[in-house]
């Protein structure tokens, strides 16, 4: 799933062609509405469905669903278990499993949290699946953000391919030295440190070398930057961005100020 460009999937859909800031604004607005909008079920469902429709329009729905399921299924099971059985607000019980009683209120709360997380993840995937991290960084710089901050923002996405390759090398090296990473939970937990520690240390060394390489190529030079390829923006996209932000802030205000 990790390509040379992180989890970005190159394409030429309309979504791919949108200015990165338009997609970033959509993600931010959707997350604000999901967690802060009025009508908790409405706010949790609608942004998620819109995000899924957008992903589908770009042919990214299947991969989006696959990523979401992989991330959220274990979390969802845990939430349902904890809140269904142990939530202090449980009063009406819908199911009895041996000595455990499943509470309706806890289950509903868990479902709400799962829906919110799903919506937030779908909205984020609209951005990360269709936007090359470099274009996002460039868009942020062009918007006036300091290059260092823009790089900081984009670097977790930029470094995914490198870290993914490094993890595979470390895993192979440790397995060659007899480390068992398959098997029961305890064995997997034990194997975690020998895998994570070299990754963290080597990543720190890489960061220093990369910083040097960036500096000698004028990353902090005081010149006004120019760009080989200007990102395509348009007045309707600018209007849409302001519109989405206004909608998010308006819905937030409706809930907290005029509620």
């Amino acid at each position, binding site marked *: 799933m990790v390509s*040379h460009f992180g989890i970005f999937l190159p394409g030429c859909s309309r979504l791919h062609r949108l200015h990165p800031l338009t997609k970033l604004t959509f993600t931010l607005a959707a997350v604000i509405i999901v967690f802060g909008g009025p009508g908790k079920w409405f706010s949790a469902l609608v942004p998620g469905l819109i995000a899924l429709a957008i992903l589908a329009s770009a042919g990214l729905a299947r991969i989006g669903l696959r990523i979401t399921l992989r991330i959220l299924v274990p979390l969802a099971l845990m939430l349902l278990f904890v809140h269904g059985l142990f939530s202090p607000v449980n009063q009406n019980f819908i199911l009895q499993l041996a000595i455990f009683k499943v509470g309706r209120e806890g289950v509903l709360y868990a479902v709400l949290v799962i829906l919110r997380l799903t919506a937030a993840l779908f909205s984020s995937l609209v951005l990360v699946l269709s936007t090359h991290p470099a274009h996002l960084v460039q868009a942020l710089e062009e918007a006036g953000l300091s290059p260092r901050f823009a790089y900081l923002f984009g670097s977790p996405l930029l470094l995914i391919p490198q870290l993914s390759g490094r993890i595979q090398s470390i895993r192979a090296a440790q397995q060659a030295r007899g480390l068992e990473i398959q098997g029961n939970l305890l064995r997997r937990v034990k194997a975690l440190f020998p895998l994570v520690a070299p990754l963290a240390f080597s990543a720190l060394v890489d960061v220093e070398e990369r910083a040097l390489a960036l500096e000698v190529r004028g990353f902090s030079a005081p010149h006004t930057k120019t760009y080989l390829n200007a990102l395509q923006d348009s007045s309707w996209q600018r209007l849409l961005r302001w519109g989405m932000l206004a909608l998010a802030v308006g819905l937030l205000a409706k809930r907290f100020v005029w509620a």
Partner: protein
Amino acid sequence: MAAIEVQNFSYIYPGESEAALRNIHFEVEAGQLFAILGANGAGKSTLCLALAGLIPHLFHGEMNGNVTVLGMNTLKYGPSELAGKVGLVLQNPANQLSGMRYTVYEEVAFGLENLGVPSIQMPERIKKALSWVGLSELGDRSPYALSGGQQQRLALASVLALEPQVLILDEPTAMLDPKGSQEIFEIIHKLTQMGKTVIIAEHRLEWVACHADRMLVLKEGEAILQGKPAQVMTLPLLKEIGIGWLRYTEAAYLGKKRNLWLEDMPLPVTLEQAVVGFLRV
């Protein structure tokens, strides 16, 4: 005129008590290829960082003396001001990719963009740099899809696009296979023919002997030898500090004891010199 002047340069890394480099003093003339030799930990990389202005601007240790590159004192001018005039290529090819660009072509543009080069001038400079390093055909490929040798050539192209007068190479072939190393050496050879000043920290004595105009040997942070390869690489001290001699030099030295090498003939540092010398006998 000297392109680089290093005067009584000493440097201690932050948190260290011992100096990484002590009283280093040398000059490099414009257009020369200057090699820095030394065992691991001798201070080669530190010297390269200082020549690129990264010391003392990014590494805030204790620095004494002066490093002047193209008339710019690195105490006053940092890497931002030196970028475009001085290029630096490091050992690890992958870590030199900005990670911020989609293709090889765009990766080369990264430095030009930082220096504010008008976008209309970029394509020509990018194409020229890619052609120097033989990557013209791979312009549309992702930088991460290249081999180690190709990535190092890309790192070199990214620096060359900035058209620096001085190029500093810190063991550029350390992580490459023989083919990748050969390709890098060929490019460096071309650059010196074009009149660029090249400083290279390198382990491969054979290449240094053939191509360097002058060389500096470091041992535990001190400059112990300096001069032309033919002078330096036949000194017994080189063997004592673990760098050793080339096989040709060693063969001629042993030959001298058995009358297979003329007494008045200097020891060879290249294959050609060795062949000529042995043929004379």
